[in-house]
């Protein structure tokens, strides 16, 4: 009697593909859907885990767009602290698809955020990327001007990227009740103050995440028809949840929704690839040893392992002949990422 499972490669069976393998030896977790070459202009965005991808791509000689570079010579720690060089524009972490579509609409002049400036101790912050100016700016008008310059650069990124890499991070978000404007952090975390009358917590559903991303895809393809998308899901658990669940349950919901959306997009659209960084780090075979002791932050070994898997498929395409790729930063504290979500730790008892 024939079975459809007969004769499949060993990677299709849990025992031979996973349990009998050392995690470092698990093969064929990722098969690229399309090439990424040295000449492709790559845009990166997403939750803080995406910063690792961005940095390693640059180190491998891939052409990652930097539409808002830091002033020449600024040291990397200071540049990163101000949101430079983390992604293709200085948007900070884009944790949710709601933030992503909102930013794209703003760049195209279809959306104006409400309550877009937060204040703290006389300094003013961009509510949609509050971490990029750690000490804020002198006035609300300065924030508005800086945002105008930023949004113009975001449009430039959308128009010129061949490849858009996005790391889906969270489903939990904070919205302005009246306008629906989505903020990356709750008011009061970095600046501003939380007022339940004006700001509401929202946990995005599968349908909403899907709808947001498809709307973004449509917008970007509308101005840049050849663009292709590569999705990843951040393996970093929630620092805290505002949902009524235990943070572990909330994390599982969030990651499950994001992973399912990425899976469905990958199945249905030729221009959407999925890279399984989530599985590599978070799945049982890794036994959590790619996490720091807090079981949340991904350690450098984990990041390196993820990127090895990525470059096993894309590495040769990205390296320019005769060009010496700059070595990736070493594994010290300099390999840290900027993650304002982690600020929520400060609110933990």
């Amino acid at each position: 009697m024939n079975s459809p499972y007969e004769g499949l490669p060993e990677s299709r069976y849990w025992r031979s593909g996973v349990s009998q393998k050392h995690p470092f030896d698990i093969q064929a977790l990722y098969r690229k859907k399309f090439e990424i070459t040295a000449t492709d202009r790559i845009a990166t965005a997403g939750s803080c885990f995406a910063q690792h991808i961005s940095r390693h791509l640059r180190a491998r000689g891939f052409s990652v767009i930097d539409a808002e570079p830091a002033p020449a010579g600024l040291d990397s720690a200071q540049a990163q602290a101000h949101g430079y060089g983390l992604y293709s524009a200085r948007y900070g972490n884009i944790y949710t698809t709601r933030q992503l579509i909102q930013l794209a609409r703003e760049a195209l002049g279809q959306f104006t955020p409400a309550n877009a400036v937060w204040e703290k101790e006389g300094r003013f912050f961009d509510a949609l990327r509050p971490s990029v100016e750690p000490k804020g700016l002198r006035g609300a008008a300065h924030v508005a001007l800086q945002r105008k310059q930023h949004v113009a650069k975001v449009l430039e990124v959308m128009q010129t990227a061949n490849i858009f890499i996005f790391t889906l991070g969270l489903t939990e978000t904070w919205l302005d009740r009246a306008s629906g404007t989505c903020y990356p952090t709750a008011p009061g975390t970095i600046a501003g103050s939380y007022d339940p009358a004006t700001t509401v917590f929202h946990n995005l559903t599968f349908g909403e995440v899907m709808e947001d991303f498809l709307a973004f895809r449509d917008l970007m393809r509308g101005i840049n028809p050849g663009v292709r998308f590569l999705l990843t899901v951040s393996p970093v658990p929630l620092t805290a949840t505002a949902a009524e669940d235990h943070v572990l349950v909330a994390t599982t919901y969030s990651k499950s929704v994001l992973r399912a959306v990425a899976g469905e997009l990958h199945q249905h659209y030729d221009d959407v690839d999925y890279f399984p960084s989530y599985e590599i780090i978070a799945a049982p075979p890794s036994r959590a040893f790619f996490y720091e002791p807090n079981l949340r932050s991904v350690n450098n070994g984990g990041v390196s392992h993820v990127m090895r898997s990525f470059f096993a498929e894309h590495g040769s395409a990205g390296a320019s002949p005769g060009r010496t790729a700059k070595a990736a930063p070493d594994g010290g504290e300099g390999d840290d990422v900027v993650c304002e979500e982690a600020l929520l730790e400060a609110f933990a008892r």
Partner: protein
Amino acid sequence: MKRVCVLGNSHLAAVKLGWDQRAAAHPDLHCDFFGAPKNGLAEVVFEDGFIIPQTEEVRGAFAMTSSGQEKVRLDAYDSFVTVGLGFSMQAIVSQIYRRFRSDVHENLSGDFTLVSEAVFRASCGKALERCTAMWLAQQLMASGKRVLIVPQPLPSERTLTLEDAFPNAALWRQAAQYGDDAALLGSLVTATQDLASNGLHFAMQPDETRAGPLFTRDIYSRGSVALLRPLGGAHGEQDVGHMNGVYGAVVITQLAKMLGCEG
């Protein structure tokens, strides 16, 4: 007797003329001058206790400015002074302010990127850190010598009225008109203080020579002369960047004080 080697680019001319005026007042000070125009001093190597030019042009300029010496013997001097060589407000204005403004600046006209004041000031520090004066100073410090840096003088206040005095002159005028001049001077001072923490000494432009935060009083630039051609060839009326021997004499007095040779 303190023996001082003064190295610089075209701005060395004023200091040399100032020394000619003031030498008699400082019998305990001896100065030798080694100059090369523009960025020529980047084309030297430190080798076997000497600063050795790598091009014929710089070798010739050294010989002309030092009365015949083609290289600098490091152990012949107690202290070294660099003059100009890119350590300047000009570097801040042309490299940073031209492209970036911070939220303390009032001039928000033109094509620029708005950054925080922390980023602006750090960028100014980096722009200065990359200049030839700093490179030379670091090499000299590694030789265990005391090093004083004399920044390039601020341009003459004539910049405010002279059309097309130099590239970006309009930006300097804007900076003054919008009141950004004090903030720019603050950026220079802060960056200098940060760099001074590494053991360097800076002879900042004396207040008496300044016309506000951004310019030099015109009396100090009238009749400035060139480093070569030979020394003494007059700069034209359009030259607002170079200073005269009177300015140089003020700098010499300042240096003598810093070196403990007040005569």
